[in-house]
């Protein structure tokens, strides 16, 4: 059994975390602009140089850690970060390859290339928050958003880490790109811990059965949105 101790998100409806805001929804539309000041109180010089996908994911991770009381740190922590995504950093891929195309007086951009892997924002989050656990991205064509949560439960069961962030991150399909829209844009992360490190009261307990079904306090949950909404409902009751 593991506990959900933090929830953070950036969606079309806004950005925030579970103990601060009840307005959580994941829907189609335009994501809010993410500035450093809208997420971090302290200067974070590097943030503005990241690609949009990394800023989205990093912001949701920051809110989740703040919600769990784990955003401040002095020693490296054994915490993983697992994220699922459909489009990943496709927009950054396009931007980078446009610097490779012949004809212009430009060279391939190393700054853009550094963000053409969808796991790079996990590395940014690991650096900023001192997280040394497993960090990787999971890709499925269509998903309930629970893949990262399932992998988190496996990782904790196998002793790979004591706690982890798990969630989804997607900017949506790049504008005018010939792919159908799958899912909605936004990032949502949960902090899942075997034993809570801060004094925060957990939202609920998570278990997983052998079929990979995720249960919140013994009740099966169908997708990540439903899981987050149930957590927020329980907190407010």
């Amino acid at each position: 059994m593991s506990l959900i101790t933090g929830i953070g998100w950036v969606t079309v409806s806004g950005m925030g975390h579970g103990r601060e805001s009840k307005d959580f929804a994941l829907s189609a539309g335009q994501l809010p602009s993410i500035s450093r000041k809208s997420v971090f109180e302290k200067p974070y010089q590097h943030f503005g140089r990241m690609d949009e996908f990394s800023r989205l994911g990093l912001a949701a991770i920051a809110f989740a850690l703040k919600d769990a009381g784990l955003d401040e740190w002095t020693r490296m922590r054994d915490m993983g970060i697992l994220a699922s995504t459909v489009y990943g950093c496709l927009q950054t891929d396009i931007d980078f390859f446009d610097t490779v195309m012949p004809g212009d007086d430009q060279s391939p951009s190393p700054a853009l290339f550094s963000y053409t892997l969808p796991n790079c924002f996990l590395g940014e989050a690991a650096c900023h928050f001192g997280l040394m656990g497993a960090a990787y991205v999971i890709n499925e064509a269509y998903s309930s958003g629970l893949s990262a949560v399932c992998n988190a439960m496996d990782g904790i069961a196998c002793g790979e880490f004591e706690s982890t962030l798990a969630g989804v991150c997607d900017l949506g399909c790049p504008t005018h790109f010939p792919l159908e829209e799958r899912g909605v844009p936004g990032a949502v992360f949960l902090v899942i811990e075997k034993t809570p490190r801060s004094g925060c009261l957990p939202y609920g307990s998570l278990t997983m059965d052998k079929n990979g079904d995720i249960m919140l306090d013994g009740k099966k949950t169908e997708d990540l949105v439903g899981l987050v909404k149930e957590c927020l409902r329980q907190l407010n009751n």
Partner: protein
Amino acid sequence: MAEGEYRSKEVWVTDVSAVTALAHDLDGLWHRILSGDTSIKPVRRFPVDRYTSRVASLMEDLIRPGDQSLTHALLDRLFRKTGPVPSDAFLVTATTKAGIDNLERLRHKIPADPNDILLASIPDIASKMLGLGGRAINISAACASSAIAVARGAALIATGRADAVLVCCLDVVTEFVFSGFSSLGALSPVPCMPFDRERNGLSLGEGAAALMLMSRERAEREGMPHLGTISGWGIAGDAHHITAPARDGRGLIKAVGLALNNAMLKEEDISVISAHGTGTVYNDLMELTAFRYLFGHRRLPVYSVKGAIGHTMGAAGGIEVALGLKTLSEQVVPPTVGLSNPEDDAAGLVSPFAKEMKGDYLLTTNSGFGGTNAAIILKKGEKM
């Protein structure tokens, strides 16, 4: 699941296949590496005159089918060498850029299937080719992608959530990745020289591997061969930089520690190390630092296959697990192709020549962008 239950399932490898530019099957690859051959040659697939290197390890005879990505042709070639896969197998794939060649074509206004660009296209294509109907995911964690996919597959079996998992990994060399590594100054102008004093960067390579993992119970029930065991795995981050390794090797040290703990082994149980060994100055130094910290005075044999087949990115870990099983089976440490004058700390560990060995456990490691590190411990199985 109950605490402690996860170790009740032993994870066997029952089939392996690999295709690279050096050979179209694992046996051929093994023999050519033992001969000290390399497939790193001048690139003809795309123009390279603007870049800092002109060499890579490519399957220049790989033909793109219509508007599809080269990934289709590579998977087709791989599955011709792969044994039967149970239809209920859980599929875990690994790739860093999937069919990014199709993004290049679309930007050049050439017809191409955009679906192939998505990382999730790989499990989709592989499932269809193999007629699988079960769950399928792709893992993306830079150059540690397939080592992590092996770890995830092993965890699925160890926890009892699956009893057959096919791990399938691949990446192709495209102008996209070639130009990117060139822009970072990471490409060696000559075929890479892992752990050599004169090393000056990596050489890109393309390839694919498939590893059939089964619970011991199912493998025995179905009479499958026991080619080896995934005894332990560990994944850890540097929390240092997204494109440069932590020079103290802290993430790799932690990953190996987790793998040893997971396998319930001690450092002295490991007989040989298949290193990531990219040939970049900082990666190789970082690895040597980590191995010295972990194994102290022991002069464990270490090798890298990247001088022979290039850095196959998301496929590297899977191909190296396949070759690691071969190393244990043959009890021969393959040569580090490209090496002539070892780095100080590597002297006596790495060799340009094949050497006999004795031992049951091999450690294989990979590291990648994002500061990620993965370690897998393999146990010797029956003769391959």
